């Protein structure tokens, strides 16, 4: 039995990182992720971990340090938010294209301008197609559990890709919740000994990283990356099974809540899913068949599995805590619409943009959306495909 504590999301992630005890970390502070690395550097200073801590001058350097250390043959992690992730953008592709299993906690925060430090998914969504694995977390427990599993997934010999663990800035990162920590030795056994692949420091087998690949080979490497992305779902499920054995907690590619016989459904990421579930219970108690789907593995997106789970509903609303500024819909909506496209019979679909820059998502918002879904299910019509909610008109 582990330890039950009251802790913030950041504290929980830092604790997971202490238990994993990576070889190297290279990091730069940014609100609201600062707290993770601040706690972790205390572990380093107090000899609680054997991690080599590299304190750098920017996030671009933080990710560069991670890339170098990972190529050298170490188990590596870092944490960031918002502008920090944006500054890493170039390096994110280098980490994934070089197939380095770096793990990064991303405490989701809005992007500038206007400058805002609060919870919003714009940062993670902006980096959704950079070749990393993304696991999203509803609460501190999930952030802790996902961080531990992320190492196992990223480092799997069939995968070898970097992984991001997303949790909502402030709402989760700085709020105290009940959380269950597993024992140190269980985590140690779970993540196991780090297996290197072509490490730079293996002087018996010298290798070079980062070669120039021109027209004759670039496509072959991209196709190989695409192929490896298609194997991630299976590994995520296998790792989840192993994790259930040590924790008793079940994880899948996504979570469904009262969805099996549902006629209307919400699709929503991270912390706002918790609020929505309460409101769904209330609708259920009134005899309305409402349910929810919360993606966990967001990249690679399990299009087929999610399409199967939603195709039988009458109406679905996708709630996005980020806009995509593509002249179209929120990023999650675009993915859900793609997942449903192959089916002839599919729910009517609409999109709400909510909670930007940390704007509160209240039960009343979920009620408003669910009521609209009841109407849409009845009429088969949508009044407006995309709409901002909780915004002053």
């Amino acid at each position, binding site marked *: 039995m582990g330890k039950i504590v009251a802790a913030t999301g950041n504290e929980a992630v830092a604790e997971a990182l202490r238990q994993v005890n990576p070889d190297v970390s290279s990091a730069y502070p940014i609100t609201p992720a600062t707290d993770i690395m601040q706690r972790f550097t205390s572990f380093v200073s107090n000899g609680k971990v054997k991690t080599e801590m590299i304190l750098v001058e920017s996030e671009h350097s933080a990710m560069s340090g991670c890339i170098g250390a990972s190529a050298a043959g170490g188990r590596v992690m870092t944490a960031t938010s918002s502008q920090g992730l944006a500054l890493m953008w170039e390096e994110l592709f280098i980490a994934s294209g070089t197939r*380095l299993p770096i793990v990064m906690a991303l405490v989701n925060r809005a992007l500038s301008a206007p400058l805002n430090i609060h919870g919003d998914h714009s940062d993670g969504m902006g980096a959704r197609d950079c070749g990393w694995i993304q696991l999203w977390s509803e609460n501190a427990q999930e952030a802790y559990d996902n961080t531990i599993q992320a190492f196992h997934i990223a480092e799997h010999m069939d995968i070898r890709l970097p992984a991001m663990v997303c949790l909502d800035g402030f709402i989760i990162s700085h709020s105290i919740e009940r959380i269950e920590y597993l024992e140190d030795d269980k985590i140690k056994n779970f993540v196991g000994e780090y297996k290197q692949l072509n490490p730079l420091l293996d002087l018996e087998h010298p290798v070079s990283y980062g070669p120039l690949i021109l027209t004759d080979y670039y*496509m072959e490497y991209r196709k190989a990356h695409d192929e490896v992305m298609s194997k991630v779902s299976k590994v995520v499920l296998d790792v989840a099974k192993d994790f259930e054995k040590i924790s008793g907690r079940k994880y899948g590619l996504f979570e469904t809540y009262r969805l099996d016989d549902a006629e209307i459904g919400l699709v929503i990421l991270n912390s706002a899913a918790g609020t929505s579930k309460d409101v769904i219970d209330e609708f259920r108690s009134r005899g309305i068949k409402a349910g929810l789907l919360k993606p966990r593995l967001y990249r690679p997106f399990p299009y087929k599995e999610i399409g199967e789970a939603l195709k039988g509903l009458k109406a679905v609303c996708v709630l996005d805590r980020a806009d995509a500024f593509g002249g179209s819909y929120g990023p999650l909506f675009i993915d859900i619409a793609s997942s449903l496209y192959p089916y002839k019979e599919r729910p009517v679909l609409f999109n709400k943009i909510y909670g930007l820059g940390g704007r509160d998502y209240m039960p009343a918002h979920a009620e408003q959306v669910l009521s609209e879904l009841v109407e849409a299910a009845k009429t088969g019509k949508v009044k407006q495909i995309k709409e901002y909610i909780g915004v002053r008109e």
Partner: protein
Amino acid sequence: MKLKNWKEVVPGAVVTEAGSALKFKTGSWRSSKPRWKEENCIQCLFCWIYCPDMAVKVKDGKRAEFDYDYCKGCGICALECPGKKGQKAIVMEEEGK
């Protein structure tokens, strides 16, 4: 050389074979070509030191011919070459002329 398919490439484009840069004949990029005028050469070997592509060969301690398989035609050797009495021992000439 038969090109590998996407299933055969090393993950992450890691080069696992030492010295494989030899197979990459960068000389094909050249648009101008250095020519050695031996009569003006004082054997200082500046060209050998400065060449970023190891394309100036040395044999028995003496300046030898360019290795045009790898010389990219950057002109550094020609610039640095002191030559003899104001006469350069390396001159750059346009390729294909």
